[in-house]
């Protein structure tokens, strides 16, 4: 029987105490291999392969390509030792890649030195130390030594941080590799280096770092399985460190952000105005434009804590729950077209809506995030383990029948994450899980060693093993069950009779399904289940024992590994997602809390502390580690309280900075020294347009009720309506609403495009929204027109013909769109424009059009 063991590869790098620094490192490679006669015997794993990687031989455009080059194929990034060794030493018909008898005639030396024609040009010089590494390796038998070298430990880079004074300055890095056998090698010349921002600093092949423009970034070193970034910084102004002026840091977040700004000599922007704050936080936090009334009241409010009071108010609003449900639906991949349920008379939209509702309820009740995630991760179709098929099917039916429909959101768990058609295979489940709950992209490791992290292909395969038993389909029933999926299927089929044309069966069956559903009958439902689930789950005691055996539950890579004599027999594992969830909840898990914190931060600042927000890897370090640590630790210690996190962020001065730059922060768009202007997200733009154009009576209703909103429950990934149909919402798609089909936060786009501009300038749908009713929401202009025409013929000055107060109308147009009152200049302009128009309402209509087309409306600022 297969035995499954949990083991945790490599603890996080920070945990490694550099006790071995006292061990002297080897001399650098150019000295060790400089002279062929006295050269040491090179190691295949430690020297030859890293050299081939550094010189580009195993790069993607050369022999690392999946089809190789010129018939010679190496593993991308050189981490398949056996395979690469075989490839390098295997002779082809005419050529001898490695010639043990005449080492210098080996093709692996003739080609890169251009002694033989080489499409990849000269990579190394004959007689150089690089040449000698390969030559000596062949002379000493071209041995594969991956087993002998043992496991790689960690990298160290000296200096640990680079601070430049001015452009042009340079620093030489030194890279040491610590092997688990105790060896410490200077691998500077065998390391690949990369800069994360070549405008700030560059790095040469040999590790010479040179300062360019001011700012901060990282240089990343890659050697064997080690990936280590070293921070590089060049202050923007001389007012840094002890010269930094006094900048208030009201909250812990401010303190940590200003701490970084102090190093850079960047002065943050001033605090934003009240009207800017109200508009900004309403849109960012609750996806909703403030109503004109709200703006007026907020500006008139004289209390000193009105901003934090507004935050508390917004956190209770349906807009908050709807917008964050939408974001969680994005990251968990709620897509109706992937939720079609075969022959069942239920379309994907209903599943999709239930998924939304389930999350909405939890966000609005502020259920702890770990509990919310567990409700998805650990979900099965049956809500109780002892549930029979009949009970399960009856319960499922209750969520779909038309009358007295049960509340799906009240279910303890939500299994549709595992039900999607695009996550049927275990590797697809692994990728989706990693994206949704870890904020990690591991797809690279599916085919080759992850280029920016320690994930290897083996790690991926072993991680994937967690997901193999998760199934969606027909769960084998107990022998004595009175009703099973099969009997329910047969009964459904029988109900449509036998005399039915073959091509009509499906339709009739779906109709029968629907009508029986409404009668509350037992129907065939497929379900999410754990295969081979007769075995019991781990008891809490067993789980504790398991955790105790794996003391470091905080490893970056969690892999259940099938070992000959593993500690945890597969049979006792039960649901493998249970230990997976334990790992997520374990103290110092590097991903689970951090990925959520980072995504929430990214929502408020337009970029994550790690950016892209769903791409956490060793080579992509946070721009402010202390900040991410503080928020993640706080989030966990506050019991994964989502509202704590939101408050902590938006109540800071950091969030409330003006968009107006200071002399030193104009170019800073990643250290949070000012509010970076960005386009509103798709759903929010569309809702804002609807709200700003709605009639006086409809506007506050639209704002307060999310049912009709693009962030509300009736809009799936494709927009409103039946996701089964090939229709999508034109405008939502245009403004970059994600369809949630691929595992990437990048599906949501905030880039402006020409088509978006054309939409707000001249699209008939958009123009109609200004002028007429839309989905029973009458428009403001229509309302004014009606009032005006109703009064025609009546004597001027009577109550039925209210005078149009032009100043008031102009002010309202501003409040509706840009959430502020017009300046005196704007008011005068507005009056002149309206006076020049054919009539007042036409003038006002054009003003509303213009305001909706301003960048001030289209962006958050």
């Amino acid at each position: 029987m297969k035995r499954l063991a949990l083991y945790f590869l490599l603890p996080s790098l920070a945990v490694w105490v550099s006790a071995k620094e006292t061990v002297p490192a080897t001399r650098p490679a150019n000295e060790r291999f400089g002279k062929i006669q006295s050269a040491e015997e090179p190691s295949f794993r430690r020297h030859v392969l890293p050299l081939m990687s550094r010189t580009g031989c195993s790069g993607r455009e050369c022999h690392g390509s999946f089809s190789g080059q010129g018939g010679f194929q190496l593993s991308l990034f050189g981490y398949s030792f056996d395979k690469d060794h075989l490839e390098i030493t295997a002779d082809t018909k005419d050529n001898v890649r490695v010639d043990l008898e005449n080492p210098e005639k080996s093709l692996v030396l003739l080609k890169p030195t251009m002694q033989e024609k080489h499409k990849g040009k000269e990579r190394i010089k004959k007689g150089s130390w690089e040449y000698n590494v390969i030559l000596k390796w062949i002379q000493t038998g071209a041995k594969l030594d991956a087993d002998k070298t043992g496991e790689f430990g960690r990298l160290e880079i000296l200096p640990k941080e680079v601070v430049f004074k001015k452009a042009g300055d340079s620093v030489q890095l030194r890279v040491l590799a610590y092997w688990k056998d105790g060896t410490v090698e200077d691998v500077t010349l065998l390391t690949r280096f990369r800069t994360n921002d070549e405008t700030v600093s560059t790095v040469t092949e040999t590790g010479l770092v040179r300062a360019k423009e001011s700012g901060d970034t990282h240089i990343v070193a890659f050697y064997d399985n080690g990936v280590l970034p070293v921070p590089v910084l060049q202050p923007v102004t001389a007012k840094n460190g002890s010269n930094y002026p006094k900048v208030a840091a009201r909250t812990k977040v401010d303190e940590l952000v200003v701490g970084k700004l102090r190093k850079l000599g960047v002065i943050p922007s001033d605090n934003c105005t009240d009207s800017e704050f109200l508009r900004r936080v309403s849109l960012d936090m609750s996806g909703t434009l403030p109503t004109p009334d709200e703006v007026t009241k907020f500006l008139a409010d004289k209390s000193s804590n009105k901003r934090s009071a507004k935050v508390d108010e917004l956190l209770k609003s349906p807009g908050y729950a709807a917008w964050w449900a939408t974001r969680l639906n994005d990251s968990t991949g709620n897509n109706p077209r992937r939720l079609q349920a075969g022959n069942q008379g239920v379309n994907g939209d209903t599943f999709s809506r239930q998924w939304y509702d389930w999350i909405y309820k939890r966000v609005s009740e502020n259920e702890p995030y770990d509990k919310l995630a567990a409700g998805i991760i650990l979900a099965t179709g049956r809500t109780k383990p002892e549930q029979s098929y009949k009970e399960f099917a009856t319960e499922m039916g209750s969520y779909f029948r038309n009358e007295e429909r049960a509340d799906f959101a009240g279910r303890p768990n939500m299994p549709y994450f595992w039900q999607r058609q695009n996550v049927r295979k275990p590797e697809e489940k692994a990728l989706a899980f990693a994206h949704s709950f870890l904020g990690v992209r591991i797809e690279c490791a599916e085919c080759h060693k992850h280029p920016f992290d320690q994930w290897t292909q083996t790690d991926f395969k072993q991680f994937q093993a967690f997901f193999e038993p998760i199934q969606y389909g027909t769960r084998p029933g107990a022998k004595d069950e009175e009703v099973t999926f099969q009997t329910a299927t047969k009964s459904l089929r029988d109900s449509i009779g036998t005399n039915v044309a073959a091509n009509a069966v499906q339709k009739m069956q779906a109709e029968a399904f629907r009508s029986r559903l409404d009668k509350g009958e037992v129907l065939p439902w497929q379900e999410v289940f754990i295969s081979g689930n007769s075995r019991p789950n781990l008891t809490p005691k067993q789980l504790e024992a398991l955790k105790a055996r794996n003391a470091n539950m905080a490893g970056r890579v969690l892999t259940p590994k099938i070992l000959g004599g593993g500690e945890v027999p597969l049979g006792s594992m039960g649901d493998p997602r249970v230990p997976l969830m334990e790992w997520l909840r374990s103290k110092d898990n590097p991903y689970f809390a951090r990925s959520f914190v980072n995504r929430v931060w990214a929502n408020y600042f337009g970029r994550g502390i790690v950016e892209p927000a769903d791409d956490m890897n060793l080579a992509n370090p946070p721009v402010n580690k202390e900040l991410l640590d503080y928020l993640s630790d706080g989030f966990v210690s506050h019991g994964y309280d989502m509202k704590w996190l939101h408050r902590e962020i938006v109540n800071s001065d950091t969030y409330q900075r003006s968009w107006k730059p200071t002399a030193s922060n104009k170019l800073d768009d990643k250290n949070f020294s000012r509010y970076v202007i960005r386009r509103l997200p798709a759903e929010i733009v569309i809702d804002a347009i609807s709200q700003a154009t709605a009639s006086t009576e409809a506007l506050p209703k639209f704002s307060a009720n999310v049912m009709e909103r693009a962030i509300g429950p009736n809009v799936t990934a494709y927009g409103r309506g039946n996701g089964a149909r090939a229709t999508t919402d034109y405008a939502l798609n245009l403004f970059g609403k994600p369809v949630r089909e691929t595992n990437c936060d990048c599906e949501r786009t905030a880039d402006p495009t020409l088509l978006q501009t054309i939409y707000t300038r001249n699209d008939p749908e958009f123009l109609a929204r200004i002028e007429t009713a839309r989905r029973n929401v009458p428009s403001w202009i229509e309302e004014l027109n009606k009032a005006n025409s109703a009064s025609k013929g009546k004597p001027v000055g009577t109550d039925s013909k209210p005078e149009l107060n032009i100043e008031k109308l102009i002010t309202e147009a501003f409040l509706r769109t840009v959430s502020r009152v017009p300046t005196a200049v704007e008011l005068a302009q507005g009056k002149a424009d309206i006076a020049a128009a054919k009539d007042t309402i036409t003038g006002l209509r054009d003003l509303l059009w213009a305001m909706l087309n301003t960048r001030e409306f289209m962006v958050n600022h």
Partner: protein
Amino acid sequence: MAKHVFCDGLARRDFLKVGGLAGIGLSLSDYFALNSAGAVSAAKGKSAIFVRLAGGPTHMDTFDLKPNAPDTHRGEFNEIATNVPGMRISEHLPKLAKCADKYVILRGVSHTLAAHELGTVYMGTGNRPIPSLKYPFYGAVVSKELKASAELPSFVAIPNQGNYPTGYLGPEFGPFETGAAPVAGKALEVRGLSLRNGVTLTDVERRQDMLKRYDSAFGDFANQDKLLAGMDLFGQKAFSMMRSERSRLAFDLSKESKSITDLYGQDGFSQSCLLATRLVESGVRFVSVSIGGWDTHSNNFTSLKTRLSPSLDAGLAGLFESLHQKGLLESTTVFVTGEFGRTPKINKTAGRDHYPRAMFCVMAGGGIKGGQVIGASDEKGEGPKDRAITPDDVAASFYKTLGIDATKEYNTPSGRPVMVVRNGKPIDELFA
């Protein structure tokens, strides 16, 4: 500045620096690049017209007849000769028979995806669909690669293009959708471009003038901030497109000469083809035209005889002839395809079902040598005879006519490098 890194270890240069604007995201920087650099290529094709035969047309009853196949397969139609010796097509395509020297028939095109959506993606992108990636359709790639005109969109879909045509390239390269097929002798209204809802050119100009004055909240910073400056550029371009006389004329079929309109039928498909030629003439880079109804599970022969073939015949023949007469055929690639062929064996309801193993495509213009049949299906039309032509090869050939390197790599937003066509090689005979 966000730094995206690729699976393969290369750092992506996120933003192209154009003038003083260091880009505001991939799409906008691409847009700048297109407008500043343009695409210089030696290829003959400068524009493309993609004709989509939605539903999956039967190859056996259109361009790949099998007169010697058994009754169970052959079908009701006869072959006729064309103006190219040896090149024979259905008797219900008489106009196309008279201009066979203009186009190439690809037979024995073959794949394995028998569902409409999957087949459409494969034939519309040249890449076999996979769940983890959405490939861009031809129009998105072409509008990314070829320089756009200042006043006209580079990609127009008549009447629309279906879902997510731009795939991983993002909405920037999406089509202008006309929403409806044009009507003979009338100007077609185009979503966002045409002045509708009672809006006049004077209104547009007045509003633009107003907008300029009210859009001043950010002061000088609006010129320094990349996002704000970029949005302003789009605003200027949108304004010039809305006002463009050239654009208005291009969409107005009443402005076409009689000698050209006479080449076409009166139905929506013919008029769409006519519009496509006018758009290409005006500088649009990619036009997609669609003719549906090919999903003939029953009554295949009646549908073809009475409706589908005559419509296709008039529209396509008109397209080839008018492009030729306007001198545009050399510089315009025409690519006609459905998502698959149909079962060679006739079913019980006189229909044919989905069949991707053997299908046909028609290509013309853009340096393609017309008047030939490339590839062949076997005796009963059940599969390729000798070599299968893959959708990938067809795609690579299509891009070649436009001077677009199909092996060029794009980087998806998640940082994955993907070739435009991942597995295709151009078909040499097309260019012989």
